[in-house]
């Protein structure tokens, strides 16, 4: 996409020297952004890119005057369509919001009133501004739903949010935001909660809007590749300061700031070379049986005798095997059955048919003490370590707990030594061992979760979206750590991920799942170089920053 350089159109948003702070009162003010300047021209997409804490969301919130409690503009100016709104009154802002500037939120799931019909939610902007007579409201709503590409708009208008998928909800939210034709849309991570193929379609819709209606879009994202693909210009933020600004081609192709280079290096795309050394036959004994063999696994839910709900087949005839010391990835979109498969492998979930053989034992047939002993060999690391660590335990206690539970090591002293060694292996120094989870960063917490898993010396580690919630630079560190651990200890990994770019970096073999069925299976290199199925091709093509034919 190229920038549409019209001769100096008046910007729909002009931000000059903006500094925003939180607090005030006795605690003093903490300044979170420092003299940020940019402008968005009509029909232009400008991306604010940065990691958590970079001030990208704060800046966007200031532009629509929706800073959280305690947030205030300390210096600088904001102008909408040439009108200086830095000190505009609350009532002036109410009349600007919806008319001049609209918001497309991050989480479509929670962003629609669950008790309102879709049509009523979209009509709300007209009602608030008394912008359309009641009798034509229904027609306007249907027009808007058609505009954002929803099928059967008349029926959709009568449905409730819970009856729509995430992608449809995001379309509805866009329809609501453009209802009064604002010149500026603020899209705050509009696709980060969506599957990758849906993400691409939503970005295409936003691109249509700016081209056909001349809407300027301020896109807030953590995803540099997405920004490069969708935006005309990119502003890279770190710690509340602008690190780099320029057209997408220049910022992504020829970055000048050190920080941008690091972001680009750490964010895997399909264009990124794979640094990891693929495991080869030489890494393992040739005739050894695979650590994990899943054969024709089928998992069903529902179908109760009394409730008469239909049987839902979450996993349908999935088979794969993982040789010792290698990584296998299950990839697919939400509802593909990848997490259910992993739960069956860890014996947390029964199966309707098929078999799961781990280290020569049939997992599905094990009961009682044998199953418990097996659990020691399979450890899990989840997406959100904050939810899986006890907030009242210090991290050393958290890592000690599994050792105590399994009665490993002879003495408490030996257990402690072992736990300390595990924490140090994941680069958590002794100074942090007495802290509690909330006192750590997201990356540190994920290291604790890994330490807690490896302290038992498991054979198989299941990584369920283990790096999805992390910033790219942190994600890169964790992925390196996992790679080192695998080489040192010969552990076998089962990776569950929706992020194909990450999978390409870390997996030896891949199974692509869709609605519980295997779509395609093979070595990572084969799958990415020559996908055989349309679905796989679509998945790969949807990754931002990919190589498009």
């Amino acid at each position, binding site marked *: 996409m190229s920038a549409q350089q019209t001769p100096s159109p008046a910007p729909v948003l002009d931000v000059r020297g903006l500094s925003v702070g939180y607090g005030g009162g006795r605690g003093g003010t903490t300044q979170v952004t420092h003299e940020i300047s940019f402008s968005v021209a009509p029909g232009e997409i400008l991306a604010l890119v940065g990691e958590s804490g970079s001030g990208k969301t704060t800046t966007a919130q200031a532009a*629509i005057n*929706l800073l959280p409690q305690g947030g205030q503009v300390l210096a600088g100016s904001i102008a909408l369509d040439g009108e200086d709104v830095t000190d505009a009154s609350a*009532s002036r802002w*109410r*009349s*600007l*919001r*919806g*008319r001049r*500037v*609209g*918001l497309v*939120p*991050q*989480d479509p799931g*929670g*962003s*629609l*009133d*669950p*008790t*309102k019909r879709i049509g009523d939610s979209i009509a*709300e*902007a007209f009602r*608030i*501004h008394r912008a359309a007579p009641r009798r034509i409201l229904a027609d306007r709503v249907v027009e808007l739903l058609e505009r954002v590409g929803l099928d059967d708009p008349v029926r959709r208008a009568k449905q*409730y949010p*819970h009856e729509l998928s995430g992608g449809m909800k995001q379309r509805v*939210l866009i329809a*609501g*935001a453009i*209802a009064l034709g604002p010149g500026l849309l*603020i899209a705050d991570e509009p696709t980060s909660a969506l599957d990758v193929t849906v993400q691409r379609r939503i970005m295409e819709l936003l691109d249509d809007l700016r081209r056909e209606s001349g809407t300027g879009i301020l896109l807030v994202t953590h995803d540099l590749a997405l920004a490069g693909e969708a935006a005309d210009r990119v502003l890279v933020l770190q710690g509340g300061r602008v690190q780099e600004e320029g057209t997408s081609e220049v910022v992504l192709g020829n970055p000048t700031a050190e920080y941008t280079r690091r972001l680009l290096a750490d964010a895997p795309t399909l264009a990124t070379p794979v640094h990891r050394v693929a495991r080869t036959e030489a890494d393992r004994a040739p005739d050894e049986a695979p650590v994990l063999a899943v054969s024709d696994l089928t998992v069903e839910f529902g179908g109760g005798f009394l*409730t008469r*709900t239909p049987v839902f087949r979450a996993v349908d005839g999935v088979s794969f095997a993982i040789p010792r010391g290698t990584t296998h990835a299950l990839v697919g979109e939400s509802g593909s059955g990848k997490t259910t498969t992993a739960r069956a492998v860890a014996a947390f979930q029964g199966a309707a048919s098929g078999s799961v053989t781990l280290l020569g034992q049939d997992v599905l047939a094990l009961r009682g003490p044998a199953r418990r002993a097996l659990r020691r060999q399979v450890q899990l690391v989840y997406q959100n370590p904050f939810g899986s660590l006890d907030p009242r335990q210090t991290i050393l206690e958290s890592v000690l707990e599994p050792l105590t539970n399994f009665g490993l090591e002879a003495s408490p002293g030996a257990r402690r030594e072992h736990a300390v060694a595990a924490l140090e292996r994941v680069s958590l120094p002794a100074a942090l061992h007495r802290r509690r989870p909330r006192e750590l960063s997201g990356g540190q917490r994920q290291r604790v979760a890994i330490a807690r898993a490896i302290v038992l010396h498991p054979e198989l580690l299941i990584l369920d979206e283990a790096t999805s919630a992390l910033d790219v630079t942190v994600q890169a560190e964790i992925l390196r750590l996992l790679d080192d651990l695998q080489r040192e200890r010969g552990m076998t990994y089962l990776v569950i991920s929706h992020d194909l770019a990450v999978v390409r970096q870390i997996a030896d073999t891949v199974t692509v799942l869709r609605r519980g069925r295997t779509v395609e299976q093979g070595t990572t290199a084969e799958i990415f170089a020559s996908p055989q199925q349309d679905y796989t091709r679509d998945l790969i093509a949807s990754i931002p920053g990919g190589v498009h034919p």
Partner: protein
Amino acid sequence: MTYALGRVASAAGVLLAAFTVAFLLLQALPGDAVMIRFENPELGLSAEQIASVRESYGADVGLLAQYWHSLSGFLGGDLGFSVASGAPVRTLLGSAIPSTLLLAGLGFVVAALLAAALAFGAILSPSGWLANVLRSLPSLFVSVPVFWLGIVLIQIFSFRLGLISVIRPGPLEALILPVLTLAVPISAPMAQVLVRAIDDVQAQPFITVVRSKGAGEAWILLRNVLRNAALPALTIAGVLLGELIGGAVVTETVFARFGVGRLTADALDAQDIPVLQGIVVLAALAFVVVNLLVDLVAPLIDPRLKRRVHA
């Protein structure tokens, strides 16, 4: 429809269980009303005469037979006769219900209004300290005992200020203090739940979206927050009905009003088991019906519950 039928069936089950438990507990009480009334030596009744009185009340047959007898009576609408006065229990309850219904109904309405006023005051209050005071009031209210509040209200408004007469008050005047006494402790948990629910809804992302369309605080509160916050408040209101029944007993005693509460207290004194049995089933019926209504109304407020209804 299946959902509604299921709810009705489970309501009937609760009623039967309440009847059975009440029956067993009342039978387990030492002594009975027949003994209290007729074995008084001053009456000078002989052992045979007492035995024939027992027979006429059906008190001489086995427990299971008595259970079956009174259950079939209840199903047919025959609640038996008061042992103390000899009047049919149905008549006694019939004369007590209207006054209690009026007291409890008004108490409930006032409690709901009070709770809503507290919650809105706390949410909309521009000053921080006022909001804090309003938010902490419910905790105070919840810890106020009904009988104490009743006595204090009489002391202040009737004896000190002379605003409301306690001796032969008019029908409306007679209701003011009892209704207030009943409403204050009931309003507290409702207000707490409502404040909490409003806070939760205000923090939802969809509120930011509505705000981004230019809505003001009043619009958001009335058109978006309230309906979403109503469900927890409605649920707690159904549960609080039990408290309302218990509160009515104390309130009617303190204010010397006639009603189901007074009937309960008198029947307890006299161990008048048929009357008590009737009251327990009546209270259970009221409780079950109100909660059934709550369950049936809930899917109308929150369409997400309908899915479970149709499934």
